[in-house]
């Protein structure tokens, strides 16, 4: 058992941190980038590709780097640290991860190769209006006619759905089950309307009307692939949240040391410093479980339950730290000009992207009577 990063992983972190620090030296730069479509910086996206990060988790045969979950976690944490709006988790870990898991060799080569080079942004179209987080599709149906397939229905909100060059779409199959399909951005019968999310990122309403679609891999029910890809994305989001929480706490502590009221700096008030201490406790507990979830993934353990555990802890921590960071600042924390509130907004978005804390808790609660105690170093995790 070992929680240390190796030297290559530390080098990767330094490189990513350096790149993102140049791209987002302050929160004004991020504000400028997210004020215009597509809500991220295409040049920064290209630089991430040049560094090999957009193919990080994919096999080398598919044009990737063959790196593991810990490397993905490092990139996600650095993205969170500066709130970089580039859709690394959405495009690479989630949409790319689905293609890597379920796609044919030809589809993997085509999609993942272009994604790794920075020439193609995929997005996973899965959420549907008036539903909650789910592994299955309900409102978009797939119809087979001879050798070809079409999709009909609505997906929304689809993160980066308007900018995406290709959509990975979940849809109800004729015979039941949920299939996965590739739909190019210029497909017939595809209507996309993009908009801005509260955290500066973008989503879209995506309508399908007899839209031609290509089944991913051999077709058929892909629920298991979806469950696994969502779990891996939840773990990556846990690390993005760690980076964001770490920054929010650091910014808050700095402010307490410099802001003066009643003739003294705010860190003279125990009512404030104790609350900052509690934020640190939340952060470190969340960090432990996020690191663990990545190690479970690497060890081939029960990644779905590990992701649920990380989701629950990080959801609680993200709300706690995000809310307190604003409160400890006072009015300045409410303003768009100041950085800290943007961290809270992003943490709130991450929390609701693939299932929040209560959602994860309900899944964990359903299993508590099936075992006596939890051993994080034993079955089913290691």
């Amino acid at each position, binding site marked *: 058992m070992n929680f240390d990063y190796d030297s290559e992983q530390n080098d990767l972190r330094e490189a990513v941190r350096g790149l993102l620090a140049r791209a987002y030296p302050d929160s004004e730069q991020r504000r400028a980038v997210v004020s215009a479509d597509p809500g991220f910086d295409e040049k920064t996206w290209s630089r991430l590709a040049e560094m090999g990060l957009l193919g990080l988790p994919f096999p080398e045969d598919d044009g990737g780097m063959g790196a593991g979950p810990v490397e993905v976690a490092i990139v996600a944490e650095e993205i969170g640290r500066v709130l970089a709006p580039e859709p690394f988790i959405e495009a690479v870990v989630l949409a790319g991860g689905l293609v890597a898991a379920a796609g044919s060799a030809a589809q993997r080569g085509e999609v993942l190769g272009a994604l790794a080079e920075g020439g193609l942004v995929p997005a996973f179209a899965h959420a549907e209006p008036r539903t909650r987080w789910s592994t299955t599709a309900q409102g978009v149906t797939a119809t087979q006619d001879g050798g070809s397939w079409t999709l009909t229905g609505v997906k929304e909100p689809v993160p980066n759905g308007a900018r995406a060059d290709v959509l990975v779409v979940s849809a109800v199959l004729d015979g039941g089950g949920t299939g996965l399909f590739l739909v190019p951005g210029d497909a017939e019968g595809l209507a996309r309307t993009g908009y801005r999310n509260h955290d500066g990122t973008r989503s879209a309403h995506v309508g399908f009307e007899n839209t031609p679609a290509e089944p991913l891999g051999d077709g058929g029910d892909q629920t298991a692939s979806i469950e696994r890809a969502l779990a891996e994305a939840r773990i990556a989001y846990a690390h993005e949240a760690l980076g964001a929480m770490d920054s929010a706490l650091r910014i808050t502590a700095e402010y307490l040391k410099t802001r003066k009221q009643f003739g003294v700096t705010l860190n003279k008030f*125990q009512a404030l410093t104790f609350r900052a201490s509690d934020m640190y406790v939340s952060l470190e507990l969340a960090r432990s479980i996020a690191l663990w979830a990545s190690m479970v993934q690497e060890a081939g353990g029960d990644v779905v339950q590990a992701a649920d555990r990380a989701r629950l802890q990080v959801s609680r921590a993200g709300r706690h730290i995000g809310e307190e960071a604003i409160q400890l600042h006072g009015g300045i924390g409410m303003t768009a000009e100041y950085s800290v509130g943007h961290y809270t907004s992003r943490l709130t978005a991450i929390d609701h992207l693939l299932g929040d804390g209560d959602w994860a808790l309900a899944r964990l609660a359903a299993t508590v009577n099936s075992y006596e105690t939890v051993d994080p170093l034993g079955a089913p995790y290691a």
Partner: protein
Amino acid sequence: MRLQLSPELEAFREEMRTYFTTQVPQEIRDTVAAHRHLSKEQYVEAMRTLNAAGLAVPHWPVEWGGKDWTPLQRHIWREEMQLANVPEPLPFNASMIGPVIAAFGSQEQKERFLPKTANLDIWWCQGFSEPDAGSDLASLRTTAVRDGDDWVVNGQKTWTTLGQHADWIFCLCRTDPTAEKKQRGISLLVFPMDSPGVTLRPIELIDGGREVNEVFFEDVRVPAENLIGEENRGWDYAKFLLGNERVGIARIGSTKRLLAQAKEHLREITIDGRPLADDPFMAARIAELENDLVALELTALRVVANSADGKPHPASSVLKLRGSELQQAATELIVDIAGPLSLASFAEKDSDVPDWARAATPHYLNYRKVSIYGGSNEVQRTIIAGSILGL
């Protein structure tokens, strides 16, 4: 990064588990599992059983019975002990005065005290807190004045846990009232509890138990040779000792055991004919606590895996704070599961209320102490704010 324990550590864990679950008398482990107070004889038997196997003081120097284990091995040893409901070696002996004498005592003191301390042939108690010196320990007022070959001790200690069983006390005394800083004029003396002038008065607690005491000193004569280390350096030894006190204070294995018991109790209680275990709200409370405990256990593992170079990991201060909160939350949960049965705390033999439900509320009330002792949680927050966040 790697999740799994090495094969050697897996074998070590199995060895500990087997020993604790087969060699420590079942009747003692049942008393711990039932959250009943252990008798003096049970404490002594448990510690001597461990000491016979070299498992009572593994963290001491090897020449005095230590094992030269890594911090991770010590963590596994402690966790397995708690999971098996084995009473931990008496902390006043094993974690407090033993390591201090081993580090700062004279050769003569080491030979005189350490073997008997490891075997619980001497039962030690702690003379630290005073009525006006709690978290602000350095304000203590008990004095020791030199008179010929003796120190003469006068004053009062309080919160002396299990002092009623103790043979000896280790006692912080003010030996230089003129010292510029109040921390500088304190010395550490040890003396028998049956010395003339020592009186002990039990303090009844809100759970009905009498585990702590007040201790009064009236012209107690202590031979000069019973000074541990150097005169007026007692504060350094106290800090060293309290650092050891916080090791293992998270008590993760013990809380894990409590949650497992909570699940059993949920199956035993019915609500409208259905087991309480089927109630989704109760299941959610268990699941949330269990997840908090996983996060704490992993944090403890990060700390022990990283503390090999002797420097404390920054996250270590989280362990006491969160560990005590989770112990308290688990005892609170069991009171809630007992529900109306939780009132029957002192029901006698012919009561139909199960034993665990009778013990639930006294246990909960007793555990309010864990966020107070060992440096209160507010002291921990002060440490985090100051030494980690720089506030």
